[in-house]
């Protein structure tokens, strides 16, 4: 697996519209050349081989057929929320009636430095996925939520990869000082594709961002996702992630709680079925004093799927009063499924409160018998218990986004999700 594949693909991407991004792209490519692409020899990539993904990502860098919107399930979801929608196809913004959203190629000159900095930011939170994405970038999407504005409607970003395409999408979100906002990011694809999606999220001082990330790509898709988050003083990010699609999904969530009082709350659900491989890497860095991270990740591993949770909380020297809890709970439903979980703490400060834990188990047989003894069929009882497990996460969806409304729009296993959402 060679970085040159990436270099070749990068040369084929048309970058004329964002010439000012060229230094950032070159810097990213250089970083990749110097450090190489990650291999399964590294701890962070132990369970996922990036090779096949790169092979699919790189040669097809210029394919851009249109998305067959009618063939996807997402319009239901749009109707459900009634939120303003922006559709991004293969990395470029298609329709954006919303003033908060612009293509990189259409941003004002004063924002370019900020965006180039965000894209090239490989120092604070290094990520091969982010570098890979930067190298292949033709354009991007800037979601600008300036300070001093309140009560804007939530925003729905549907980020689609079209048939057989292999693409890189970049979304930069800037949530201004004291700004409260709600965003839904929905990744979907019509069929087999490989996509690299990086979202840079900047929560400025006092901002409160509520973010839902829904990954619902088709079974044969490869999804390489990365969210790089920095949270400033007194700001908070409340995040719900639902990983329900793609044959191979790897996601890196990289969070820096940069200043005093910065907070992260994450509730994440991974659903594995068929031969799905889902690898969630999570790195949370406490740098400011009195910062807080509360992470709950749940996984359901059925059939021949494999779920990986690799989570790391790092408390840096000086981050006094840090409060971190990381929990990973998994249900292993089939003998052929596999769960690998490694929650870790690295604490370099004394006055902190940190905990972590992981469990992997089967459905509670006592609960199953109890439900069946009341006349509930075995399959329905199992679904109820799965729903109960999932609902701990689904209950964290922001107001205005009901679990049933959201989940009814998920293309895969629609009945199951609906069932899960409705049983409360």
């Amino acid at each position: 697996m060679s970085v040159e594949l990436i270099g070749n693909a990068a040369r084929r991407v048309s970058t004329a519209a964002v010439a000012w991004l060229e230094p950032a792209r070159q810097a990213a490519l250089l970083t990749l050349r110097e450090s190489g692409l990650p291999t399964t020899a590294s701890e962070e990539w132990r369970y996922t081989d990036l090779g096949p993904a790169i092979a699919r990502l790189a040669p097809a860098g210029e394919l851009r057929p249109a998305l067959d919107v009618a063939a996807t399930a997402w319009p239901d979801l749009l109707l459900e929320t009634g939120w303003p929608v922006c559709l991004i196809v293969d990395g470029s913004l298609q329709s954006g009636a919303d003033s908060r959203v612009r293509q990189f190629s259409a941003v004002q000159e004063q924002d370019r430095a900020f965006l180039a900095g965000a894209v090239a930011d490989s120092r604070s939170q290094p990520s091969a996925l982010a570098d890979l994405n930067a190298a292949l970038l033709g354009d991007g999407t800037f979601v600008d939520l300036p300070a001093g504005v309140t009560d804007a409607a939530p925003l729905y970003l549907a980020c689609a990869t079209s048939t057989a395409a292999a693409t890189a999408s970049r979304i930069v979100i800037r949530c201004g000082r004291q700004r409260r906002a709600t965003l839904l990011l929905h990744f979907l694809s019509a069929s087999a594709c490989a996509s690299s999606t990086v979202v840079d999220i900047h929560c400025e001082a006092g901002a409160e961002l509520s973010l839902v990330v829904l990954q619902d790509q088709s079974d044969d898709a490869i999804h390489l996702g990365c969210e790089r988050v920095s949270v400033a003083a007194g700001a908070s990010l409340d995040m719900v992630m639902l990983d329900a699609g793609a044959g191979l999904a790897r996601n890196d969530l990289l969070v820096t709680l940069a200043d005093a009082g910065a907070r992260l709350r994450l509730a994440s659900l991974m659903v594995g079925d068929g031969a799905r491989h889902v690898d969630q890497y999570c790195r949370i860095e406490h740098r400011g004093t009195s910062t807080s991270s509360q992470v709950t990740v749940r996984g359901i591993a059925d059939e021949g799927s494999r779920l990986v949770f690799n989570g790391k909380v790092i408390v840096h020297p000086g981050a006094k009063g840090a409060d971190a809890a990381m929990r990973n709970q998994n249900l292993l439903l089939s003998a052929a499924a596999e769960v690998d979980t490694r929650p870790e703490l690295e604490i370099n400060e004394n006055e902190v409160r940190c905990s972590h834990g992981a469990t992997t188990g089967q459905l509670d047989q006592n609960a199953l018998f109890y439900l069946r003894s009341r006349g509930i069929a075995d399959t329905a009882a199992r679904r109820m218990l799965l729903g109960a497990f999932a609902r701990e996460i689904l209950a964290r969806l922001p107001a205005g986004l009901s679990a049933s409304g959201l989940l009814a729009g998920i293309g895969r296993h629609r009945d199951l999700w609906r069932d899960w959402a409705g049983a409360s």
Partner: protein
Amino acid sequence: MTRNTEPLLEVADLHVSVGDKPILQGLSLSVAAGEVHGIMGPNGSGKSTLAHVLAGREGYTVTAGSVRFRGLDLLAMAPEERSRAGVFLGFQYPVEIPGVNNVYLLRAALNAQRKHRGEPEMDSVQFMRLARERARLMQMGEQFMSRGVNEGFSGGEKKRNEIFQMAMLEPQFAVLDETDSGLDIDALKVVAGGVNSLRDGRRSFILVTHYQRLLDYIEPDFVHVLAGGRIVRTGDKSLATELESQGYDALVGST
């Protein structure tokens, strides 16, 4: 004892093991429609095993014997099929199921039973009216109904919830496994009132208990002593009084 009707439940020479360990060893019991049977017996004598086997719990091996319920081979049926056929188990230790709402479960259960009988589903207005009425009978507040199944309930609340569920499902036959254990006298009266309200001359009950006082409130037709995996004595309710004053050893000898 003479009976003019075919029994509702007929347990014949039942042998049950857990792993290699024999627990029930030739238990026979016949319950006719409308009857209330008390079963008493020392700890570990197999009372809960009998209750679980009747309800269809996995993990028990029936090595001999049979159980017929309304002419059906009960042991061949899945737990949900038994429930729909009219069997109810009141658990000695009701299970907490956070995330599955109490009322949601009841409604799903009730509609599963109705579907089985070929009746239409109950709409939510009808259902809630019925649920409120029965909950009032069990002196359960609305807050119990909106919580997860038994989630955070006290011991007594869990037992009342069992009887509430029974009152909603209106089974033909119920085994109540130590429903009275851990109840104060007021809660005991509520539970007994719930059971008595369902006694209609056709519905039958097995009450597993350690205490005569439950049988003071719910008058049994028969009282059995289960020891060593078998019914070793059968009598009327005076047997309970005798047991209470003399203990098991004096009555059945050490087994």
